[in-house]
């Protein structure tokens, strides 16, 4: 560190933005996209939306369906696995055994939409085609 270096107040980006905006009173940027990017973004958006909805559907089956099963079959309270009522395991352990793989699955699929397109687009004039081939 040189002795002549000036001291700088370090603030969070949020604070910095708030201060800039207050001084100038205008929006920092108006959102825009290059025309080629718009096409690619549309492809990615649709692909991601489909994948997100699929993951949420699985989640909904778990958290809507499992309580229904437990309500309809009170007999599960009496069935035991390793000494523990099966219906207790269904709340205390089963959901986590579903959630962790579900997170992993959704993560891999969401990343697959991006990874090949990011690499291929540099030399490719048809980004949506790259998105399409990016799927297995």
């Amino acid at each position, binding site marked *: 560190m040189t002795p002549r270096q000036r001291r700088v107040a370090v603030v969070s980006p949020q*604070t910095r933005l708030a201060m800039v905006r207050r001084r100038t009173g205008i929006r920092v940027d108006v959102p825009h*996209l290059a025309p080629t990017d718009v096409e690619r973004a549309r492809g990615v958006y649709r692909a991601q939306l489909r994948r997100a909805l699929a993951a949420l559907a699985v989640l909904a089956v778990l958290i809507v369906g499992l309580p229904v099963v437990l309500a309809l079959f009170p007999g599960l309270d009496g069935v035991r696995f390793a000494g523990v009522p099966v219906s207790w395991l269904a709340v205390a352990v089963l959901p986590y055994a579903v959630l962790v793989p579900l*997170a992993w699955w*959704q993560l891999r699929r969401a990343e697959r939409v991006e990874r090949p397109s990011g690499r291929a687009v540099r030399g490719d004039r048809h980004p949506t085609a790259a998105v399409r081939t990016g799927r297995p």
Partner: protein
Amino acid sequence: MIGVAIVLVVLATLLIGARGVAAMRSTSDFLVASRRISPTLNAAAVSGEYLSAASFLGVAGLVVKDGVGALWYPVGFTAGYIAMLALVAAPMRRTGALTVPDFAEARLGSPGLRKLSAVVVLVIATLYLVPQFKAAGLVLTVVSGTPYWVGVVVAGVAVSITLALGGMRAATYVQAFQFGLKLLLFVVPALWLVLTVGADTRREALSPVEFTRFERTTPVEFRLDTRLTITEPTPVSLSGAPVELLGQGSYAAVAGSTWTFAEGADVPDVAGAVPPGGEDWSRPLLDPAGGHPLLATWSVLVATVLGTMGLPHIIVRFHTSADGRGARRTAAITVAMLSGFYLFPAVYGLLGAVLLPELYLAGGTDTVVVALPARVDGGWVGEVFTAMLGAGAFAAFLATSLGLLLALSGAISHDLLPGTTLRRLRSTTLGAAACVVVLALPAVNLDVGVLVTSAFAVAASTFCPLLVLGIWWPRLTARGAVVGVVVGLVSSAGSVAIDLLLGLSPGLASILLGQPALWSVPLAFLTMVVVSLRGRPPAWATAAMLRLHLDESGPGRDR
């Protein structure tokens, strides 16, 4: 001993904060530090910030009080990150917005919506903070025997000192450390308890019988004014007086009094409470006695799953990811980390129902985690484990409260008041801490887990539709967002307030008012969509939405 343990937790927090700051030499180091933090470390930080006193103490307490169905709470707390992962994490990171008010302005360009969102942050953070302080006060009360208000004030002072000494600098490292600490301090005592209690207690915990008779001479220290119904003559000693035989009838136990029930005495009934171990208690659904178990379970799940994405202290954490991909990975790893932690509240809850069922009479079920070691082992070993759990609970309180207080004061000084200075940010934080202490004093009779869930319900009814529609629906207008957030806020926070004021007995009305998410979330979504469809979004709205989905690896991005 517990005092020493808590001081150690605070000191370790400060030390790591100081080391993290020392590791960064220059301004640019500080600003780009985020780019070097791996998703795993960041996920540990998210989990560290997220695992609050409600998770550490509240869930096990609710299991003793309400039954096995309370284990649905942590399922919702974890599943929220699936919704976050699928819908919000990556696009939110790409906006560059640190908070929902930032997001509102970045996506919809509306300063009014920014202010409104800041108000919602205030409501959510307050609802979330009050139970944290209540839990901290309660822990200090249990382990040191001081009155409740002393505990709350001490907790407030501890938070203020940590803030003043800069304990939250290098926050990612601090929070990641806090997660490791909490996991250790929760899992090790749980394993010790399971091994120590003996085969008989383990078997009883898995095949509970209804708590109808005191198995030993049991002192019950009432924390609230409680109405007891005694159905057969019961030998009781009131606050140290000689044993007398109470006849049939209704009795009022004053808060703070101690009733010592003799061995073999009949357990009195408490209005509106389910005795632990009974058939209703053992059903794995919420509110089994109220007649609407499915409705009750679903409303908690909807609130927690959809509310997670709107928690102000969690959203900030995702900004520390390098990019959208990093944020997404962080969310996925967080699911795994939380799943590990949430396997254990059941251990405390089930053992507590067998070993300390009398807590449900006293209104002290939130203390069950901390009270268990002393019940199992009266010697120094039990004391060591009590200290470990007390310190863990305090760490949980500290991590979440600091994050929330910073989010709260950020909302006040960035979004609501003009002219930000750093000094004012600091004084706002201390002022907010003082306000929360005052609010926590009368909150002693509220369940930590339940109050936290109402914060989730407000988040789910306001920020969830704003974020989801803002990220995935190009036609959302600023006007639609404003009206939708107002409707969501008024319906969720309003009905929770009405429920608190009326104090309804269990039933349909109590579920719909106390846990409003099941109807208030669809209502907010619907309002936002209908109002938006009646207006026109600005020309740049589609671009503003689409660019949130464009990954950073592609060309043509301007940052």
